[in-house]
């Protein structure tokens, strides 16, 4: 009959066959949950790419609303400037222009009010929408992925790690860039000067594009970069500044002359007007020498005065015209992470775990006990197997892409975002 050696060999070969089959079953089990993880990760990344495209489109609409606003604002300012000039003239032709301007004022006001309300209101609404979109679609996609997993593998569990839930990846106000793009578009579009065509003649020959460029700093303060804007293209501003400085200089001259006479008699200091002080420079000691030193010893810096008063007059006009600085709470948004195509905030990870078949676990444990000659009875920790997968969403600006030419600062305004599976952060399985 069979010898014990033959029995032993038989047991070993049977064990090896079982081990081989068991290992294959475990590999397929792992592959299956990896498939579930990939499906969930790609679904979630797809949802984020969809949100990114919606946000980019919100941004494009925001720019497209600001561009006509530049046109209407510039045209309106140019009309007011021409109208004021015409109405102040006694020329019969200009009086006709003045009458035309007067009749057009309600229309101008209505049009300006419409575009301002539309632009500010839409900016605020679209910005609010953009800032919340990722969290909403993430929850939606997770629910979808869970439902799908429950149908395919009821005993599997799914854990999602999505930074977009805590903080929107689109968290950086990008009003400055939006403003630049809007102005670029307005200048290139040929719409400037056409918000009110043929209404009246540009009697002053104003450059409407130049006005639009100078308005940028008033319409959106973020685009001004800390530089206070001036409306030097408007003759009334320069005229007002020059007139103010001439008056200041005259008052100063008068004060110095009076002080010199007074000094001769009583030795008192000349009284320099308070608002002229920033523009007066006197040589120390020379002011006491008498009348000859009246203004010769003190110099009035007219250029600086005109410059400052241009600034003040521009700000006053902008205020009376209803131009306020850009509202940071309602601007187009850009990704918080400058390096968005490889940043961790544009990545979502999913881990799927599923219990291993009980028979396979038992068999694995038995085999390990056998090959360890009974010393190890625990077997491998294969009760639950898990797999992780990540998905990312990005702007396809790689070489060969249709969108490779889109410069980085424009990418948040182009709805071409896409998604892909990315490597898992840690090894799958435990």
């Amino acid at each position, binding site marked *: 009959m069979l010898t014990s050696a033959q029995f032993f060999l038989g047991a070993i070969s049977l064990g090896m066959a079982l081990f*081989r089959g068991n290992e294959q079953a475990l590999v397929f089990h792992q592959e299956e949950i990896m498939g579930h993880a990939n*499906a969930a990760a790609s679904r979630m990344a*797809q949802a984020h790419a969809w949100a990114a495209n919606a946000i980019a489109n919100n941004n494009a609409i925001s720019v497209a609303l600001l561009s006509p606003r530049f046109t209407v604002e510039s045209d309106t300012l140019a009309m007011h400037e021409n109208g004021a000039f015409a109405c102040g003239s006694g020329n019969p032709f200009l009086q006709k222009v003045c009458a035309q301007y007067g009749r057009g004022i309600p229309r101008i006001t209505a049009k300006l009010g419409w575009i301002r309300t539309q632009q500010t209101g839409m900016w605020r609404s679209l910005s609010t929408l953009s800032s919340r979109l990722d969290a909403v679609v993430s929850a939606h996609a997770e629910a979808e992925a869970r439902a799908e997993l429950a149908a395919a593998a009821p005993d599997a569990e799914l854990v999602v790690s999505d930074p977009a839930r805590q903080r929107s990846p689109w968290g950086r106000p990008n009003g400055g860039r939006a403003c630049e793009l809007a102005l670029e578009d307005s200048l290139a*579009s040929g719409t400037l000067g056409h918000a009110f065509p043929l*209404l009246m003649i540009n009697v002053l020959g104003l450059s409407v594009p130049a006005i639009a460029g100078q308005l940028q700093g008033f319409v959106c303060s973020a685009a001004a970069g800390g530089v206070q804007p001036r409306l030097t293209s408007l003759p009334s501003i320069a005229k007002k500044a020059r007139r103010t400085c001439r008056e200041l200089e005259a008052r100063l001259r008068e004060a110095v002359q009076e002080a010199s006479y007074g000094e001769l008699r009583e030795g008192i200091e000349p009284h320099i007007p308070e608002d002229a002080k920033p523009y007066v420079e006197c040589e120390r000691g020379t002011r006491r020498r008498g009348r000859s030193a009246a203004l010769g010893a003190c110099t009035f810096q007219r250029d600086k005065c005109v410059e400052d008063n241009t600034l003040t007059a521009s700000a006053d006009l902008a205020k009376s015209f209803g131009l306020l600085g850009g509202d940071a709470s309602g601007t187009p948004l850009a990704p918080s992470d400058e390096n968005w195509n490889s940043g961790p905030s544009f990545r979502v990870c999913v881990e799927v775990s599923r219990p291993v078949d009980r028979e396979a676990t038992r068999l694995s444990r038995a085999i390990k006990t056998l090959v360890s000659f009974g010393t190890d009875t625990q077997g491998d920790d294969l009760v639950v197997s898990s797999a992780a997968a990540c998905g990312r969403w990005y702007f396809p600006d790689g070489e060969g892409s249709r969108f490779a030419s889109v410069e980085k600062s424009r990418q948040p305004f182009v709805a071409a975002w896409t998604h892909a599976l990315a490597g898992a952060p840690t090894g799958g399985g435990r």
Partner: protein
Amino acid sequence: MTRARRRRRSGGFAPVTAMLEATAVVTWFVVLVLGERLIHEAGYARRAAERGAVEPAATLAQGPCTGPGASGPRGPLGAVSTRGAPMPSLGGPIDVAAHLGLRGVGAFAVYAQRPKNVTAEAESDTVRGHAILGASTHRFSAKRTRACRDDSLDKPASSIATYRDTVFGRHLRGY
């Protein structure tokens, strides 16, 4: 000499015990070989089914999922689906934007785009023997789902100018 004598005495036949032993050993090896073959066939069939599902799913998911195009061991396998609920409606601001006449611009359709997925299913040929490695009715089936990548609705120059034309032309140009 003794063995030759024994063989002569038994008329050329080996003893029954030796025959039984030899038969048992040979049978054992036959069982082992058949077992190996069974495992191999089952593993191969399941691998074919898995590959048949994974590869088309991955290939189709690279594109906009316009239709089945890949094939596995059993013919066309990829099936495009837009299953599940569509993306949440964006409501208010988008309705307002639509009423401003912006709906006609290509990229506007992004808001209404339904996510597409590809589900690839593959089934192996019939395998012999018992159902092992998760087979049911002597066949293996595998299924993979992946999200597809839609073609961009925007253009590299972006839709800003098109939107602006609509906004300006509709309410602001001239009188």
